[in-house]
């Protein structure tokens, strides 16, 4: 299946709350397990971007405006 979306995370302002992880319907968002950002949190990110469907759920629920979503 062709990639539908591209979602970018401003990792340095993420507070690692995990709300985005919980609402992604294709389950491709995860918090970093080892790396921490300058705020001291494990930031969220996407490993398999080709599975993104650009639904914007993650961006809608992010309290910190970390996420930008593009539709391909």
């Amino acid at each position: 299946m062709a990639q539908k979306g591209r979602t970018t995370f401003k990792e340095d302002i993420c507070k690692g709350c995990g709300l985005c992880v919980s609402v992604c319907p294709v389950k491709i968002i995860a918090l970093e397990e080892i790396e921490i950002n300058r705020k001291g949190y494990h930031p969220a990110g996407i490993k398999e971007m080709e599975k993104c469907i650009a639904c914007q759920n993650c961006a809608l629920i992010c309290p910190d405006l970390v996420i930008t979503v593009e539709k391909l």
Partner: protein
Amino acid sequence: MTVVFERTTGLTEVETHYCPGCTHGIIHRLVAEVLVELDILDDTIGVCPVGCSVLAYKYFNCDMQQAAHGRAPAVATGAKRVHPDKFVFTYQGDGDLASIGTAEIVHAAHRGEKISTIFVNNAIYGMTGGQMAPTTLIGQKATTAPYGRDEETMGMPLRMSEMLATIDGAKFVERVSVDTPANIRKAKRAIKKCFQVQLEGKGFGIVEVLSTCPTNWGLTPVESLKWLKENMIPYYPLGNFKSPEEVE
């Protein structure tokens, strides 16, 4: 390739002080997006409360004033009467609006002030470390209700939207939640309608937003959304209580 979601210009670039997963941040964004979409950001005066959102003036990209605890509707009344051409909103927590500021919100609605209120109900005093609010649920623990709230000594949680909807001067009253992406979209639509009521000169409007406080609820951010859905929504039903026909 088109950008379908990006940071709103209605907020400054300042990073918020809110705890991880606190839904105050989502509500700020919705208000800011609506101000931009209605093209009124440069003509807006916001009034922030005492509570965790006391610093909201650093985040909203419009003129802001910070009021004494519970008094945001009184300050907004003054701002609106001196500047009737400006859009004026208050942003208040449940301790601020439903406790110390009950008189101010009731009488602002009663006078039919042409202001709009965003009422963030997280069933607790967040900023001061988790004391019971009038909105705290039966059985919910707070530092001042360590065994949980009980009806006999503390009364039942106060439903502000239902109460305010009985006041003639209140023209728009709706309760929404930000616990799911679908509810977040609905919350934004309600905020927009509420703001339009003021722009059309119809009177007072309020949107109560059910919100989380992971820190003082003692839950993770994701558990907090679930707790809101399972405990708050049954007691605080979502929906519109009052709306002028034209904005429906």
